[in-house]
């Protein structure tokens, strides 16, 4: 590393966030590739904490800026590298053009270690049998895999890249206990995704569903059949948000232990394509 290259430094700042931004510095043209060796991840962590943490949180779970957990998996190295070094015009995300391609790859490599429970645990079931269990249990009515299925619950195309067998097993037995917290559709902060909401209108009618979006005046939920319901908060009797509850049924009593193992193995095998 050249001693005279400006150090791209951190962002723990006054008002909001934003790190050391040394704009308009010619960017290293080398393509950005994730660096995932333990040494690279350790360096990436330091660079992340110095440069990105003020807006995105020390654990990249989001603060004033969105959560970055899972972002490299969703966007890929090239797009992540472009955003990190080029910024997003019209937003608070400035470009960090002074980061080299290698350093950017180290930051992305570090981010790839976050937000996963897809650890070293090996699923013990049979993937092929698990696919049959998935199809026979009606899962596709609510979940999408590779473009097929319903959109009530989270898409599962890449769930095995993000979630390990123990997380998946818990989700099948007690849905709602480990809901993901991501910026997601919400612009900032770590909001609970698929939060169960019970709305009672002024005429006593009630609707259950998962939160799709919310602001200070409105809330929109999706019911178990996939229908959307929008409410003006001032016009309803009450809104109850119930963390831990889910519109998804538990499969504790409907699947045998081997079926459960197979289904977990199948889900854990879903790594998807970027």
């Amino acid at each position, binding site marked *: 590393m050249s001693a005279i290259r400006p150090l791209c430094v951190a962002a*723990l700042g*006054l008002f909001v966030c934003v790190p050391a931004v040394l704009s308009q510095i010619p960017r290293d043209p080398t393509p950005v590739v994730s660096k995932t060796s333990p040494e690279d991840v350790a360096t990436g962590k330091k660079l992340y904490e110095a440069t990105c943490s*003020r807006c995105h949180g*020390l654990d990249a779970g989001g603060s004033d800026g969105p959560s970055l957990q899972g972002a490299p998996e969703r966007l890929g190295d090239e797009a992540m590298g472009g955003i990190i070094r080029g910024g997003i015009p019209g937003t608070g995300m400035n470009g960090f053009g002074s980061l080299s391609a290698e350093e950017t790859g180290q930051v992305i490599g570090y981010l790839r270690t976050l937000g996963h429970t897809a650890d070293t645990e090996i699923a013990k079931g049979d993937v092929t049998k698990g696919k049959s269990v998935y199809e026979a249990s009606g899962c596709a009515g609510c979940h999408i895999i590779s473009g097929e299925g319903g959109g009530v619950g989270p898409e599962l195309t890449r769930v095995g890249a993000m979630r390990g067998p123990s997380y998946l097993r818990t989700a099948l037995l007690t849905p709602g206990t480990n809901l993901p917290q991501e910026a997601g559709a919400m612009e900032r902060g770590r909001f609970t995704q698929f939060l169960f909401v019970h709305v009672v209108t002024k005429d006593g009618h009630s609707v259950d569903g998962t939160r799709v979006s919310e602001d*200070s005046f409105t809330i929109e939920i999706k019911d178990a059949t996939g229908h959307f319901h929008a409410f003006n908060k001032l016009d309803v009797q009450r809104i109850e948000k119930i963390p831990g509850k889910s519109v998804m049924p538990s499969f504790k009593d409907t699947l045998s232990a081997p079926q459960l193992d197979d289904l977990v193995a199948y889900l854990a095998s879903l790594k998807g394509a970027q």
Partner: protein
Amino acid sequence: MRAIRFVLALLALAAALPAFGQVPYQRVVKSDSEPANWLTYGGNYYDQRFSGLKQLTPQNVAGLKLAWAYQPTRPAGNVETSPIVVDGIMYVTDPPSTVTALDAHTGNKLWTWSPILKNVVAIGLFQTNRGVAVLDHRVYVATIDAHLVALDATTGAVIWNIVVADNKMGYAITAAPLAIDGKILIGTGGSEAAVRGFLDCYDAATGKRLWRIWTVPAPGEPDAETWGDSVPAGGTTWNAGAYDPKLNLIYWGTGNPAPDWNGDGRPGDNLYTCALLAIDPEAGKIKWFFQFSPHETHDWDSSEPPVLFDDVVQGKPRKLLGFANRNGFYYVLDRATGEFIAGAPYVKETWAKGLDAKGRPIPIPNSDPSPEGTLVYPSITGAINWTSNSYSPITKLFYVDAREMGSYFVKGTTTKWEMGKFPMGAGGERALSGDDAYGAIRALEATTGKMKWEFRLHSPSWVGTLATAGGLVFSGTDEGNFFALDAVTGKPLWDINLGSSLRSNPVTFSAGGRQYVFVTAGTTYFVFGLP
């Protein structure tokens, strides 16, 4: 006859064209007498963000419609601008440091000016701009690379352009200047770059510097003993100030000491960081100061805009100053003397048991950042951040845009920062954001801080408040809502979702006999009025 028609036509044309108004100092002093205009960053020298306009009321505000919208060509960052409106002309900025004059009736662009920026260093702050100052026939803007520029109000031509401080060292400016009688005041950001904070005063006509007040001492100077053996750094004056023309005192808040989340290397109160300074603008001297957060370690700058107002306390008329601090407390000071009059938390705070008789916080042990993270309320971004509060002399309420959020504060591993650079291992936060946080517009009794009402928001916002004589309070949300509340009860009266986060203080003005309300959302500038 033809000549008369021609003259009449000329007069009609002149009436239709926007007039570039002259704004002598005395006109700004009496700004409350012309509520059609918005003549300073905070609406008047008292920074009250209160307008005397009454056309919009709780009865008719639900009829607000979009009058016009404007989009800057290529805004480079968050839009956080607050415009000035003079006689039908709006002077507004977009990031990083562009100034544009718009016809306030139509939103049509009249002129625009941008600085030439190269290799900008912005450490710990967004590359944005919060607004301009006007005086006589000039518009004054400070730039992200720490210049102060005087522009011709009619053409946007540069009259003078001077360097306030060295941007390479981390000095950068996002705030609007303050223009008083023949003088322009401006501070800078940069505490996270370990710069030494100051407030500058320049001759409005020439740009010559008249004085500089350092906010932290050099080693060996008086008050340096409040820093242990460290080299004092930080205390930057990066937001707007207020002014009392009768007392002839300027009020300006100062930022955090550096390094931030590790105070081990700077034992003591670290004067004058996280404080309010009352300054004599003629002498360039500090008349009094009040330190809100001695030895600050949570990044709770005290740079929030102070609000000046007059009221009766214990039977005596007093000249007061209200201050909603990032540290979670609302303070009332005597603005002539700096005497502490009242103080109370306006959000959940877990770092102080309260304030003593002189307003000094009584810290709760073990609320400093730690290596593993210490959960403290409010969060690093504070109970409020850079946005402005408002005060209505009619309701005598102080309207604050409160942020209810906590953080795990992680202690930095370094006790020394190098100027112009940001050290690795500085520390920071793991914020309890999302569903663990919320925001609220709160109406506080201005002389005590006692809450009269609140309107809850889905998340902590970055918008500030605007109060009007018509009985309304305007604000917005991070989810894109722009809304009006009843100033007396807090009841919501009107709202619209503008599709992107609001990140600027709203203002109101009148043009062609119609009252308008301005706000930005995302990178679009919106103006609403009655049809």
